[in-house]
């Protein structure tokens, strides 16, 4: 395996890791609650990228919608639909979590009038 082939074979995974780490960093290091949520979003999207990468097929495979009249369907011609299905579910989960987190942020803001974690955690910050 040449270097180039190796890189082409893996670079998608590397990008997913980079994105995931960006999100991960935001989730644990950022002080602003909304930024944490943004990080969470990036994190989850990166995972979706990873799953989609698993399912992809090179060499002429097409989207998994079976052409009418195709009698003997050859699986190699179509992209693997299973990761897509899983990721549809994951997206829904993602947006649900996002909505809930936003609702929580609203609640927190109502109580503390700020979204900075260190200000919230100060004793007596409640209004």
């Amino acid at each position: 395996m040449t270097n180039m082939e190796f890189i082409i074979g893996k670079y998608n995974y590397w990008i997913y890791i980079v994105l995931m780490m960006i999100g991960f960093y935001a989730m644990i290091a950022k002080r602003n609650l909304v930024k944490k949520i943004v990080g969470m979003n990036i994190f989850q999207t990166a995972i979706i990228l990873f799953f989609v990468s698993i399912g992809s097929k090179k060499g002429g495979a097409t989207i998994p919608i079976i052409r009418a009249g195709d009698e003997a369907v050859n699986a190699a011609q179509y992209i693997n639909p299973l990761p897509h299905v899983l990721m549809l579910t994951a997206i829904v989960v993602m947006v649900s979590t996002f909505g809930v987190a936003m609702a929580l942020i609203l609640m927190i803001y109502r109580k503390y009038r700020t979204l900075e974690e260190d200000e919230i955690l100060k004793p007596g910050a409640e209004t």
Partner: protein
Amino acid sequence: MKLFAFLAVVLTGAALIYSTFDMPDWGDTTSPANAHVSPRYIEQTLNETATPNAVTSVLADYRGFDTLGETTVIFTAAIVCIMLLRTRTDD
């Protein structure tokens, strides 16, 4: 804190990249992920569910229960938001 987080992230990332060396290549048609379970969905979706879009047939039929769960997740999210944000307590 930030430095610690950065270090943790870099270390995790490095470990993950290391693990990619054993992965099947991107887009490999014969990788286990593409060869074990999924061919049946593609080959049989028309015969078994009369639905050309394999994603739809897997989503709503083969793995329909996942989708029921998914719908429940979003249902939960809605009820949660209503409960959390609702300031009125009457009605």
